[in-house]
């Protein structure tokens, strides 16, 4: 029974990583940059939801929606102001800018909301479902998180595979010049990608803080880095890769904590990443890049 409950919390934590990793991987796919500020957008989303529901007493659904809207705007604005002017700059410059944006968001949050941790109350309450005569108890938030992850995965698969905009995104990630010649506006497509990634970050922030209720300006950074790891693990640029990478990472982390060592669990996570990359440098589902001459 304890194994089963570890399994479920692993999948649940992994679902949060997966949702965050989707943002990393989609943005990387289209603009070939690592948006290290992505983790901090999660934190902003959680704060917005916190204030909406606990200070202004809005219903939780409204809080989540408000967080999504504001994070979407934040993501698009960050891209326009910080990354767009560097579209043709060296990738190192963009990377450093992204780290700068990350620090900016953390410090702005500290200024606005202080560094005192806030206690986030779960948007779905603290209930749990008891199975097997009470032997196995699954928290509602774990169920909601896993369900959200599945819905998001299905929606994104449909979006990128079936819609005109989604296909344009794939076209842009492959060849921006050719996409432009098709009449696709590359700038607009990149904005849409950032918008989707940031809205997902808001959802992830709320789910994360509902399960782990301490909210601080640095709340987003560790999950952000782990989700980035998950994206690389699954093969950066690949949407199913981000999902699988996220879930596996959550499982490794929880089982590592449960059966090996609580203190070493993060080390185990990163050790597994290193091993996977040694064996398969493009990640689990990473595509081999064909350079045609």
């Amino acid at each position, binding site marked *: 029974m304890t194994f089963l409950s570890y399994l479920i919390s692993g999948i649940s934590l992994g679902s949060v990583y997966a949702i965050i990793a989707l943002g990393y991987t989609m943005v990387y796919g289209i603009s070939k940059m690592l948006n290290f500020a992505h983790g901090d957008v999660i934190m902003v989303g959680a704060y917005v939801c916190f204030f909406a529901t606990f200070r202004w007493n809005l219903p939780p659904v409204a809080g989540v929606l408000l967080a999504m809207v504001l994070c979407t705007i934040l993501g698009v604005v960050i891209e326009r102001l910080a990354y767009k002017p560097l579209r043709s700059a060296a990738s190192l410059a963009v990377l450093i800018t992204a780290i700068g944006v990350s620090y900016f968001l953390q410090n702005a949050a500290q200024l606005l909301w202080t560094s005192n941790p806030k206690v986030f109350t779960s948007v779905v309450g603290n209930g749990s479902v008891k199975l097997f005569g009470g032997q196995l108890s699954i928290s509602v938030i774990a169920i909601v998180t896993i369900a959200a992850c599945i819905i998001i995965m299905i929606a994104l698969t449909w979006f990128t595979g079936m819609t*005109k905009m989604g*296909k*344009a995104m*794939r*076209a842009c990630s*492959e*060849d921006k*010049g*050719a*996409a*432009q*010649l*098709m*009449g*696709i*506006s590359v700038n607009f497509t990149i904005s849409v990608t950032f918008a989707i990634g940031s809205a997902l970050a808001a959802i992830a922030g709320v789910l994360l803080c509902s399960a782990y209720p301490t909210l601080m300006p640095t709340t987003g950074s560790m999950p952000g880095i782990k989700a980035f790891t998950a994206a690389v693990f699954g093969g950066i640029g690949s949407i199913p890769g981000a999902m699988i990478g996220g879930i596996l990472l959550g499982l490794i982390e929880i089982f590592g904590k449960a059966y090996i060592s609580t203190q070493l669990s993060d080390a185990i996570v990163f050790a597994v990443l290193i091993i996977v990359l040694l064996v398969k440098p493009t990640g689990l589902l990473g*595509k081999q890049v*064909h350079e*045609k001459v």
Partner: protein
Amino acid sequence: MLKVDNINVYYGAIHAIKGVSLEVNEGEIVTLIGANGAGKSTVLKTISGLLRSKTGEIIFLDENICSLASHKIVERGLAQVPEGRRVFLQMTVQENLEMGAYTRRGNIKGTMEKVYAQFPRLLERRKQVAGTLSGGEQQMLVMGRALMSHPKLLMLDEPSMGLAPILVEQIFAIIQTLNKEGTSILLVEQNAQMALSIADRAYVLETGSIAVSGTGRELIESDNIRKAYLGG
């Protein structure tokens, strides 16, 4: 229909295109030939809005398109088949064609059927990922993809590059058919012999400026052109 007037394009400090002017009239096949590095592709990229000219103007259907974003230029009816094929390798043949019709609203089925009729090979491979196609098939796909936007003027950048002679002939036959059906053509080629044989008019580009121009026949018969570009 298209009038390029005195454009100058720079790559940093390098003056790549020096005062080039050319014209394509409705219904014509015009070819732009020249050696490697003469600037042929640069001219096309400038017309498509991927590169900017410092001077002059580019008039397409009575509108100056010099400062338009490239996706707006496609909407006006000017499509480019880029050099080196550049299909979307990880997308299916059908998805590639759909991308060609990106600027169009409404039903594109009719156009797609026409393209499939023109290139039956693509219909057979419609569900296949474009990366698995042969070079000739990929060239057909990029041409079909450009046709999906219903262009009034189609610009082709070296469609014969890297293809077997028999395929080159096929591609050129298709270009002529498209032209007969009403699409004006601006063709950039290194294969001067082939290009001149189907062109109404031709321009020869030498290190960034137009050296000679005339009808296709005039250039084929000219001694200088024959020596420089047609191998004797």
